[in-house]
């Protein structure tokens, strides 16, 4: 995963970047599977490696597949990134070890779910009980978020039928079309 991530940063060709992002997602899905989070692995494989790759390809077809190279790297940005990363790493020092039985997350409501969800809700898959019954409001909120995301996409680029494309990509399209026509009609 780390190799993929560093390779991603170095690349300037966005088509290859999209492909590598898909590979990275697949690795992440395998990692979740190793950590016994099958539901999350499912989602990561389907969304991260599947749908988002296709959507990114769609975006590339609307824009361009070459990244603009910034000549001057900003020192301020580097400092900011290093500081944020440092704070995050410092934060992990306080985290309990993976699988620690005394971790707060295993002492709070998890025991109740494990002991009583069979009687109170029923389904053998406790993840489903928690998501759909105990945390029904949260899941309703999540569904609303997905709905809002789709509506947002529709509002921004949904109804334009291509007429509101950025003028630069329209020009690029025209150029490519003209070149195509010249190639297609060899005299």
């Amino acid at each position: 995963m780390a190799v993929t991530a560093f390779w991603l940063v170095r690349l300037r060709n966005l088509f290859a970047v999209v492909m590598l992002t898909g590979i990275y997602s697949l690795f992440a899905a395998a990692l979740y599977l190793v950590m016994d989070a099958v539901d999350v692995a499912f989602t990561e494989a389907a969304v991260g490696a599947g749908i988002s790759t296709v959507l990114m390809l769609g975006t590339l077809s609307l824009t361009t597949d070459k990244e603009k190279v910034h000549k001057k790297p900003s020192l301020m940005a580097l400092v900011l990134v290093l500081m944020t990363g440092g704070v995050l790493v410092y934060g992990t020092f306080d985290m309990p070890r993976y699988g620690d039985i005394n971790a707060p997350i295993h002492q709070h409501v998890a025991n109740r779910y494990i002991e009583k969800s069979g009687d109170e809700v029923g389904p053998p898959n406790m993840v489903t009980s928690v998501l759909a019954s105990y945390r029904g409001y949260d899941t309703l909120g999540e569904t609303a978020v997905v709905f809002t995301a789709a509506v947002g996409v529709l509002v921004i680029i949904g109804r334009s039928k291509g007429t509101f494309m950025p003028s630069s990509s329209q020009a690029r399209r025209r150029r490519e079309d003209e070149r195509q026509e010249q190639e297609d009609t060899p005299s």
Partner: protein
Amino acid sequence: MMVEKVLLRVIAKLLIPLIMLFAFYVQFHGDFGPGGGFQAGVIFAVAFILYALIFGVRVARQAISASMSRNLLALGVLVYGGTGVATMLMGGEFLSYNVLADTVHGAQHLGIFVVEFGVGMTVAGAMITIFYTFAGHSSSQLTFRRGDGMHVDAPAPTPKSTEDR
């Protein structure tokens, strides 16, 4: 378009029904195994997007029209929220499934089933809608030009191009 690629077409025709069947399995078996509405919706949408990639967005639109995917999107949220309203009308609190049937387990099962179905509909509708809006830009006016990202057989820029650093 990719229709002329026989191998892709045949394999896709073999795989798509299986993927969709798996989506429904994940949807309705979520109580017992891993999975649930979100995963099922995503897998269903993936199957459909695969169909659209192989056979073209225009053909896919004949199967599920853009307005239909939008309706699916809205209907899912409505089903979820409607379940909550239904439990309120039957004398419980919002989304407390216990009033839906006589036994606690039966009521909870019914409630979770309906709610997960709503989630699945919303997610599938959302994914297909987003895909349509992205793909619609490149296909509505320019019928499958070469060099679009949407087809895989396009002369893809290789990672080892000159600007590769």
